[in-house]
């Protein structure tokens, strides 16, 4: 390993070259590393979280929650820094105060997509950005499938959160299956095109991901202790109960709870502030 111009290089002969990646069919000859994280992160229990770029609020929420809880349990979350599911998984891992690794399809000095340069910096602060391409390599569409083989190759477990029928995330799943790694798919509504790919994986025999614990067990880790409970107002507890059944808008909750619209809105803000509920496009869900 040598350090030059702010990045490091791992070759297959380096002691820190991750063993799991070394075991795949065509491991990259070199890995370029950027960030403050140790190269040994790549040899920790690694979980890959991938999915579509144009995800639904549901997909975004699941990816974030998985990233957070898995990172909190001690797993290293690996993804591709793309928009949508990838970015949410990274953000979740940062929220869970764990390390996260982004595998790029271009040089590690290129923040691609540009909109995620701030996110890339946050990842680099405690984790790693890695690539098999030399610094300066421009992003190109044909490099992304090759990048996916590294994501799958690093990970003991690969999770597909949301994918259309022919999504790049399915390529990652194929790589993982070829190498005999475990693949989880998050079940989605059968009416949603965004869940077609993941539901198809389930039909083909992928493990359904119902709770983060499923993955934590598969990685041989322990779940992080639950945060302390916070006292809620009567209205907020009532609204929380209703949200446990299913996600709902303010109007839905007014209908079900018998509370007025202003009281429901205040209760929801209370739940948002305690981190128990999140809102996307006017629909609230438990976090």
């Amino acid at each position, binding site marked *: 390993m040598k350090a030059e111009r702010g990045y490091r290089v791992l070759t297959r002969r380096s002691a820190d070259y991750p063993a799991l990646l070394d075991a795949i069919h065509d491991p990259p000859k070199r890995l370029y590393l950027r960030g403050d994280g140790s190269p040994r992160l790549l040899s920790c229990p690694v979980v890959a979280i991938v999915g579509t770029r144009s995800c639904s609020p549901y997909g975004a929420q699941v990816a974030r929650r998985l990233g957070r809880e898995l990172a909190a349990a001690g797993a290293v979350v690996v993804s591709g820094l793309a928009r949508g599911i990838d970015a949410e998984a990274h953000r979740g891992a940062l929220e869970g105060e764990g390390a996260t690794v982004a595998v790029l399809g271009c040089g590690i000095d290129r923040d691609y997509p540009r909109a995620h340069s701030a996110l890339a910096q946050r990842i680099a602060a405690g984790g790693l950005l890695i690539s098999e391409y030399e610094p300066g390599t421009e992003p190109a569409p044909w490099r992304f499938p090759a990048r996916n083989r590294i994501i799958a190759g690093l990970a003991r477990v690969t999770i597909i959160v949301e994918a259309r029928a022919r999504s790049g995330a399915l390529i990652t799943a194929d790589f993982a299956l070829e190498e005999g790694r475990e693949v989880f798919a998050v079940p989605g509504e059968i009416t949603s095109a965004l869940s077609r790919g993941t539901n198809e994986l389930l039909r083909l025999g992928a493990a359904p991901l119902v709770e983060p614990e499923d993955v934590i067990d598969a990685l041989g880790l322990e779940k992080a202790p639950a945060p302390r409970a916070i006292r809620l107002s009567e209205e907020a507890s009532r609204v929380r109960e209703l949200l446990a059944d299913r996600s709902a808008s303010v109007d839905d909750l007014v209908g079900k709870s018998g509370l007025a619209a202003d009281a429901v809105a205040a209760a929801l803000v209370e739940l948002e*502030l305690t981190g128990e509920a999140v809102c996307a496009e006017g*629909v609230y869900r438990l976090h």
Partner: protein
Amino acid sequence: MLTYALVGLEPRRVEVEAHLQKGVPSFAIVGLADRACQEAKERVRSGIVSAELEWPLRRITVNLAPAELRKEGSGFDLTIALAILAASHQIPAASLREHAAVGELALDGRVRPVGGALVVAEGARRAGIEFVLCAAESAREVALAGVDPVPVHHLAEAVAYIRGDWLPEPPPLTANGRVPFTCPDLAEVKGQRRGRRALEIAAAGRHNLLLAGPPGTGKTMLARRLPGILPPLVREEALEVTRIHSVVGLLPSGQPLVAEPPFRAPHHSSSMPAIVGGGSGPTPGEASLAHRGVLLLDEFPEFQRPVLEALRQPLEDGVVSVARANGRAVFPARFQLVATMNLCPCGGRGDAAGCSCSAARLAHFREKLSRALLDRFDLVVAMPRPRAAELDGSGEETSALVRERVQAARERLETRPPRMSSEARVLLTEAVERLPLSGRGRARVARVARTIAALAGAEEIAREHLAEALSYRIPPELTGT
């Protein structure tokens, strides 16, 4: 003979002089008259002949002073005709002194109303002139300025009046022809508790409101009902609004004073001059026509970006200033902005069917809504598609009922606005730490919370008022973070 030209919304004194000389008969108008004004020649000549008066066969020169001010439109016709008649000694020039005139002439001598009669009359009042000759249709508008209108139907009547042979019937000043209010009622909206509540808060606090959701969830339906729950204008406001509407000729006949808050809903293809005002004149745009009322921008992101950015000035200052080569005009534009939008370009977001937009298209869509513009909305409401079961609600509140609460809240806000309780202050600080909320966002939440407390009739902004206000903050999915 005096009349007034309009520069924007301001009257400028124009003196109309006529001079007859010996020579080949001709007729010239000088003093920077535009095309419509030059054409007055033909109308005035026909009008005078039709009124069975004599057209002087002399070399006629009409001067509109001051000469450097551009004069536009047909409102000078009546004044020019009277000046020529006075110069040819057909009417006594001395009697014209305490009069001003405004009106267009028809070829048969009838006097037609023109836009801006109210502003002309206000100019006359400031100059101490008591009587304004005008078309019968403009009489009530002129009377609003506090001068005595002399309503005439025909040039012959005007001449008879100046000669002292005839007095017009005083216009029925007391009968305030208030047309029935035609805003659709809130009782027709089923369900939509969240939207109705936001509408009520917006009305009470004059907050700008953004409704976002998939197509067909009733965003526009709600927005159109906002004027119906606003209190009527007070007289001062009504005069301001009437002045603007008079200048663009939008006053409905039989209703001289605009007493209800105006409602304007320009289409998203509208140009910048159409929205903020312009033209060589310049004339007021939709933003000014919505002064003291509601400006609805349906499909907000579809408007041209420069148009949206141009709206930032009136949203901040309550005025639009339009600069043109031949002058600058400032129009009042203190409107309440209501906008509707989809959550993504295809409209599928927030719907069960889902969104089919590419990530790049979505990013572009969000970029168009600049943060600076979104920051002008105190209330942002996401309206997901309602589940079918709740559409059968009945016995909804009427607009009149909501309007009473709005009025009470406004009075409270003006006389003793609720103060922030310490509990609410703690919550606000907590929220700023935990939620993405800018400094501007913080001020916005505090404003909305004050309105909510006023609606509740409370002396202090309580914790739950502030919590509700927080629920109307800009959702992160609109800013793309």
